[in-house]
């Protein structure tokens, strides 16, 4: 393992039997799992290169149980790692050998559907897709749509601030959640926000969203739902050069058009996807754009025309426009299956997740090509082109000595390039353990200290999901110290009035 996790606390491990007994007193029956065989399913999440069995797994099914488990761990100084469906691609739910793995899988109930206020109140273990399905009969849906939406839980979506293909137009999780019930590490149960558009006071919901399970354990969520657009149609546009496709993306946005989704694939990704799903992708192009417009029929028809004209102006070599739902879905089938498709051409792959300014797309692709040469590893690129979110898939074979290390170094270089081009380390997958040690590429120690101080406000002992997000851990007392510079109110230089 290249990433070091916090050292296990032997004193805690020595008390494992006693801890299991105490947890059983809180969560009876099968809710506490301590056999090595049964705990195996929990030893990794979507970042499968990293595995670590937890000390014990607890699966509570009430908020009160979550509260008691956390309170017990808080009082006993035991670390806790929360977990939803375990689909994190950044290792956010990787267990700790001396930690309790707190699974929210039993929180599976949608508590309330309120069409008048256009919200759903749900437990965190409900899958993203299940929310949309529960309101589909009335024409509503929940907008953020991560690729893993069949499996990923809404609680995990909040923890990671998940995105998806449609977040260009409809926003990420943070733009679509209104409130939650959260249990702090101390066991305290709080309600933040609700069905109103805004919270009072500081926007605590905003800071909890995307906090990667480091601030609290969410036991209920209120999400906004939207009416489904009347129609959606897609264009599939091929370009002989990646630069032309990048220019097309910039011009569409520049023309004031915000498509429902705008995705790009490069040649290796196109070929892998086509071989897998036979979507009819052109194989003689270097870049393929899938652009979806949604809204009323007349609007979609008009925007399709405008986008087609822009694409032609950028030198598109092929352009297909969907004329039926079946055809639109076919266009998407290859893109949606891009990850498993790449899985068929390579024994293993690493999926990266940097974001860059849209205008830097060609530059970033050129850099990725150079790095591919340097590291002697193949790469297939799929992007949420509309918002500059790159997903380079680095191909490697874990059975060949040294390849995973090379793949990780390649990935790190891509993310450094994203920051260099004015972007960020992660657009939607989260920092977790995967990008933790790259945080200093983007943030200074002062920046990171401020973030960790905020964590202290929620978790004063640093027991909740430690070892994720922050490369260096500091004690709260140390972070909270105010350094007094000088001792007089003198700003010799600054004009006074």
């Amino acid at each position: 393992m290249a990433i070091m996790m916090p050292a296990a606390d032997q004193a805690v491990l020595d008390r494992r039997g006693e801890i299991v007994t105490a947890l059983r007193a809180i969560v009876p029956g099968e809710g506490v799992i301590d056999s090595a065989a049964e705990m195996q399913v929990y030893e990794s999440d979507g970042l499968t290169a990293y595995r670590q069995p937890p000390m014990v797994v607890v699966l509570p099914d009430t908020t009160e149980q979550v509260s008691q488990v956390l309170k017990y761990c808080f009082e006993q100084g035991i670390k806790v790692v929360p977990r939803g469906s375990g689909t994190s691609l950044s290792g956010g739910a990787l267990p700790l050998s001396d930690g309790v793995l707190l699974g929210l899988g039993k929180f599976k109930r949608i508590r309330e559907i309120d069409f008048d206020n256009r919200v759903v109140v749900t437990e965190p273990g409900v899958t993203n897709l299940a929310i949309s399905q529960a309101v589909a009969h009335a024409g509503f849906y929940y907008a953020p749509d991560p690729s893993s939406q069949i499996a990923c839980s809404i609680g995990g979506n909040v923890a990671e601030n998940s995105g998806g293909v449609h977040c260009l137009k409809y926003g990420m999780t943070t733009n679509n959640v209104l409130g939650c019930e959260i249990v702090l590490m101390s066991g305290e149960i709080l309600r933040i926000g609700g069905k109103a558009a805004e919270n009072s006071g500081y926007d605590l919901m905003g800071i909890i969203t995307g906090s990667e399970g480091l601030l609290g354990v969410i036991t209920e969520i209120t999400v906004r739902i939207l009416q489904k657009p009347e129609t959606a149609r897609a264009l599939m546009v091929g370009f002989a050069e990646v630069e032309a496709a990048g220019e097309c993306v910039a011009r569409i946005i520049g023309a004031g058009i915000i498509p429902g989704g705008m995705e790009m694939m490069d040649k290796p990704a196109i070929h892998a996807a086509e071989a897998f799903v036979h979507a009819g992708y052109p194989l003689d192009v270097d870049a393929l754009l899938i652009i979806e417009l949604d809204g009323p029929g007349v609007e979609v028809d008009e925007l399709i025309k405008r986008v087609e004209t822009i694409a032609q102006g950028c030198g598109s070599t092929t352009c297909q426009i969907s004329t039926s739902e079946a055809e639109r879905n076919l266009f998407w089938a290859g893109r949606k299956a891009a990850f498993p498709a790449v899985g068929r051409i390579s024994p293993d792959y690493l999926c990266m997740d940097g974001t860059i300014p849209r205008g830097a797309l060609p530059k970033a692709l050129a850099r990725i090509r150079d790095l591919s040469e340097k590291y002697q590893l193949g790469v297939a690129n799929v992007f949420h082109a509309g918002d500059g979110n790159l997903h380079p898939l680095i191909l490697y074979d874990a059975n060949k000595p040294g390849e995973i290390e090379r793949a990780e170094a390649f990935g790190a270089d891509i993310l450094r390039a994203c920051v260099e081009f004015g972007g960020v380390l992660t657009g939607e997958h989260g920092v977790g353990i995967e990008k933790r040690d790259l945080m200093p590429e983007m943030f200074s120690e002062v920046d990171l200290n401020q973030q960790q101080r905020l964590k202290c406000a929620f978790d004063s002992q640093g027991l909740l999901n430690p070892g994720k997000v922050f490369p260096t851990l500091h004690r709260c007392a140390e972070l909270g110290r105010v350094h007094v510079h000088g001792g007089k109110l003198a700003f010799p230089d600054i004009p006074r009035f």
Partner: protein
Amino acid sequence: MDTLKVRDAKDVEEVVRAAIASEQPLEVIGHGTRRAIGHPMATNAVLDVSDLNAVTAYEPNELIITVQAGVPLADVQSLIDSKNQQFAFEPMNTSVLLGTSGNGTIGGMIGAGLAGPRRIRAGGARDHLLGAHAVSGFGDSFKTGGRVVKNVTGYDLCKLLAGSWGTLAVMTEVTLKVMPKPESERTLMLSGLDDVTANKAMTAALGSPYDVSGAAHLPNSAFRSATGALAGLAAQGPAVTLLRLEGIAASVADRATSLARTLAPFGSVEMLQDTASAAAWGAIRDVEPFAAGGALGNWPVWRIVCPPAAGGALGQAMARETGGDVIYDWGGGLIWAALPPKSDAQAALVRQRVEAAGGHAALIRAPEETRRKVAVFHPQAGGVAALSQRVRHSFDPKIILNRGRMLLIAAT
């Protein structure tokens, strides 16, 4: 009282550090247009960021603009307007309500986080702040977020800065999302509905697939002192309910027809076209019926945010019980209430009703003596209040910045 006019982030650090050393809390201002919102502050010096007024970078194709915190909002708005772009959350111009001049700075806009009618569709200030450089109450410059929309790298401190009224950190530079302006707009207007029925009409419209970007109701009383855009509407009937559609012309026309059908049970609709529509929504955004210069100019004004479908009944009951006037935005989810002057602004009654409906209320306009004794921002439940204070301390442990603005300091 000293006013310290800073020229760069280093100056801000120096002032905050000196303030920590001498235990002198600072009031942070740009143009000072929103100073009268919140409790009178327990501060001894003013940190003025209005000279931090450079536009760092405007990249229309990236849909972002990076500016220093002291840039006048009006300047930025006209700059992005020149590229046919806008802040989609329609920041409110508080000068109409407060009687101040000008629309303040970008920093003030974010610190206040007061979004207009399009919040129901496009989100609030918090959804458009992508990144920030700021100086904390530790006297340290830090940055958060970035210059791209899609970013989950580290905690999203931008969310906390928006709407924090300058109590967490002094923003020095921010990156904001800008959006293309719609090509056309049209407003459907229903007349004569009572508040509860109007709420139902707005709920029906917002539950339709027609992408409504504004849903407001003005009871008849709102026209008592109406001037400008709203005076024209008053001729239409005793009360008006407005529903806005925006987008390309063909789409707006198509949706207008469909929406009119959806609204048929509530009566026939009249249409306001582009200019008239824009003027009406500007007046609603800035709460013109309760303008400082109007007939209700000296009435305290509450800003109530509640579950949208609860708004009509809540506003109607409150108006009846207090003798006040209300207007509704956000499909009922935002109520502006002007109440007859009383020294406590009828806070207990307002908050009791609002809490029962699942909302919260802030006293946006009131005389200083009222703001000395009534909680301006909605008091939070014990655990959330304590957490909010710990959050505050994590940025500003000595409570140097805007001390006393958000929390009522109990008289001792």
